[in-house]
């Protein structure tokens, strides 16, 4: 198996794992809840 093919396989696995975490969040009714913690992690203000 060539290195580029292995890298692609690893990339697809990482992508699938990322989706496995993110998609349940997406379908969860997220008004408030975990979004608050994201916003606390990266606080934004107004210009």
């Amino acid at each position: 198996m060539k290195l580029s093919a292995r890298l692609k396989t690893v990339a697809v696995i990482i992508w699938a794992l990322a989706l496995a975490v993110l998609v349940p969040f997406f379908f969860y009714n997220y008004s408030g809840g975990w979004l608050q913690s994201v916003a606390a992690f990266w606080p934004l203000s107004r210009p």
Partner: protein
Amino acid sequence: MTVRKRRKSILTCTIVSVLVLLLLSTFVMSQQVVDDTRLAASGIWTLYLTLMTFMILRTGRTRPWRSIFFVVFAFSFVFIFISDLVAERGSMQLTREVIEANDTPLCPVAIPQLILPALLRKLLIFPTQIVSGHYGGFWAIFFMWLVGFLAMGKGWCSWGCFFGGIDEGFSKVLRKPLLNMKKMPPRLRYLPYAVLLVVVVWSFLALEPSYCIWFCPLKLVTEYPAVDNPVAYLQAIIFITLGIGLLVILPILTKKRMQCGLFCPLGALQSLARPLNPYRVRIDHDACDGCRKCEAACPTFSVVTRRLQTSPANSGPSTKRFLTKIDRSCTHCGECMAACPQGAIEYALVGVPRTRSFDLDNAQPWWKRLLRVPRQVFFEIFEARTLFVLTAVTFGATLSGNFVTRTLAELIGVVVRLIPALSGLGGA
């Protein structure tokens, strides 16, 4: 050259469609819909999406199922969005009070301008709620788009975008284009990247969402600021011209999605970020005969053809004269697959070669023949097309559900009110 078959077995199509039906029914049930018309509308939309999944997998063509879904989605979104604005504010006008209250709905197309100020200066330069609010808020909309994009890639533009169905709808009005875009200068394909660069730099320097303020053609179908000074007048001329041109007139004349293919900065950002998603549309060059029908069918100028050098000795009628390539701007709509007479274009996953054949030899041992059906179904389910369609339908259904079912419920309500009135007229 052989014509490739793209049909999947009825068993596979049924299994995947039933999975879609179960998923969507769960969503409908979790919405706690009490209104009868809304429940009927949800049922109709769920059944359509299930039928769409079955037909796309069975025929190997997304046409016309995806197109109908996408156009209904966009027009329902616009109808519900404007209805809500009018009910709340009395008009589509974006007033100074709404902006100052940071209560403007955030549209995913605005996201590219917001990323740099948010990353480098921790500033949100769009007048919307930061976490989640009346219209979603920045983080809610950003994650909605991010997860949708990670899951579908550029498929977002043909299965998940709220607005893509508008120019797609108008591009389906005529049977043949009045304005042939084959002679379009190839460099025009880079226009969305130029728009992206301009709005990102401008927005970062001026700390204002420049695309929304100066260019966005979609203001025509969402909300627009008051025209009460010369600058606002100029902005109105720009967005009305771009809106009518890119969303209505040019799509009708050319049968292309002009806003999506040549102007949208979110589409350009997604094209650049394509490596974040493994779904691709792939051409089998052994099967392709270079007829260029895919190029004509592509609504977003994403099929690029190059003339091959041919020597006089092998320039017979069967010789391939063009080499076809799918550009990174491809939105995975599937129009090229439907147009390809050779069946040479198919959804693919990065690093996964073309599907193997499942036609097992009858001379094989009995246990291998017995395992043939479950093996075929297993491999067909985990094929790129099935996985992509399943993802795209699920996300498309989630994003469109609220708007389409509300619109359908309104229509059902009108019909229900009309029937007694009409029967009363008939009786009289």
